[in-house]
């Protein structure tokens, strides 16, 4: 098996990344209310909310990084800004490699379409060409274990089957960067083992992994470094055990 040498190569780089949401003090989503306020010369006031605040760090190829922090700390926003769903308000995100976000398995699946049609659709959403997908179709179907149901509409699938198919498509090609929200629990025990084995194989071959998790044990087990985020600030980055120690001390103090 070809094994990438884990050379010191920065694969993810965030420079002073700030993501700012503009939150209106009153909810005015309609043009009607906006117009009425404008006529009354009552200006709408906004406050700025920084979901991420001047966050900088870099990740080397082959690392496994755990991201920890309380609810609403900005972990999801961080993943979104890395997976280019939102562009940072300030600062810069640089990626050196293809990213496979395992956050939304089967994003864009169409319930009415068959599993096979959805492989092409989801493949296109992930940026693969039709030709590419066609040559990988068999491998994807086999890995998902959907079997003969592949020609049935997705709406007849169980939620586990949908997730299995989504996982099989998203991970068929080894990505340079894998992003996960919590350790995957896709499908039944057997499939979980299979999917974890695939991820570990990719990791072994040089893929970089980012995991958001609330479970200190799995972070401790899997990650060589951890990032602690609090109120949108990067509170701490370092060896997993150090960060986890500080984090738990902070919680229980």
């Amino acid at each position, binding site marked *: 098996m070809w094994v990438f040498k884990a050379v010191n190569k920065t694969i993810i780089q965030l420079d002073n990344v700030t993501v700012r949401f503009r939150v209106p003090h009153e909810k005015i989503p309609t*043009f009607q209310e906006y117009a009425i306020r404008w006529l009354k010369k009552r200006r709408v006031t906004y406050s700025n909310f920084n979901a991420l605040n001047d966050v900088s760090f870099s990740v080397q190829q082959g690392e496994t990084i755990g991201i920890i922090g309380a609810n609403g700390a900005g972990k999801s926003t961080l993943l979104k800004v890395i997976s280019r769903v939102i562009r940072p308000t300030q600062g810069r995100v640089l*990626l050196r490699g293809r990213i496979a976000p395992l956050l939304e398995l089967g994003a864009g699946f169409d319930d009415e379409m068959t599993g096979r049609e959805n492989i092409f659709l989801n493949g296109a959403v992930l940026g693969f060409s039709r030709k590419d997908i066609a040559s990988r179709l068999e491998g994807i179907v086999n890995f998902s274990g959907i079997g003969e149901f592949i020609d049935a509409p997705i709406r007849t699938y169980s939620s586990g089957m949908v997730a299995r198919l989504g996982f099989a498509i998203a991970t068929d090609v080894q990505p340079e960067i894998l992003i996960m929200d919590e350790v995957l629990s896709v499908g039944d025990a057997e499939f979980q083992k299979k999917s974890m084995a695939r991820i570990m194989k990719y990791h072994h071959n040089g893929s970089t992994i980012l995991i958001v998790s609330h479970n200190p044990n799995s972070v401790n087990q899997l990650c060589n470094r951890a990032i602690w985020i609090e109120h949108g600030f990067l509170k701490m980055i370092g060896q997993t055990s150090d960060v986890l120690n500080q984090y738990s001390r902070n919680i229980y103090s």
Partner: protein
Amino acid sequence: MIEYDSHKKLPPFLDELIQLFHYHELIFLITGNILKNRYKRSVLGILWMLLNPLLQTIVLAIAFGAMFKSSLSNYPVYLLSGLLTWNFITQTTQYSMGTMAYGGGLLKKIYIPRATYIIAAVGNGFVNFMISIFSMVIVVLFLGHPIESSWFFLPFSIIIITVFSLGFALLLSTASVFFVDSIDIYQVLIQAFFFLTPIIYPISTLPSYWSGLMAWNPFYYFVEIFRMPIYENTLPGNDLILISSLLATSTLLIGWLIFTSKADQLAYRL
């Protein structure tokens, strides 16, 4: 090798264009899926695309036919040629507003070009438009209305109308993300414009001060440029061609610039 750099090297209007090109297969797939989904569960399937405008024409011809009998011969031909343009413009714009305001979920989950759904909506409307032209042919043949060489101008009419629809859809979709009720406002406006535009009636029935105002109704030009080669069997005049193509291209240009300049905010707003 840098796969992604959040600092844009290109202006948004160019960047989005390049991304769309990269994702063109996705646009075709989504367009196809909209078409398939709409007609998959009905027995008549794709036949509905033909029947729909025909039935609409029959109903309106029964309702208004007698009124314009003296001024318009072969009234159903006049009616349907106007309706097809009108339906294309309004259906594609309404559909793309709806998908952006309610179905923009995918844009929040994963990166795809922001204009993907809007272009797919216009593509879907375009296919519908093409198919419904067969219903036009059916009506024309049935009534024995002459078909002349002026029909060769129709591809240009269709291109002009499509360009306008795309630009208009981009503008309206941007609005629908920022103001949810713009969909309702638009609904009311197109209802009004349906009667303000000579679709079911000839412009000659209007008093002269009203028909003068028609110059300010953009829909008038697009309805006319499609209807003239079919109903009157004449080529549209230079003025009409010039005004409608200028209107269409400037709408697309402005729509594209506004949409792409706001595109990054969409994922924040949706």
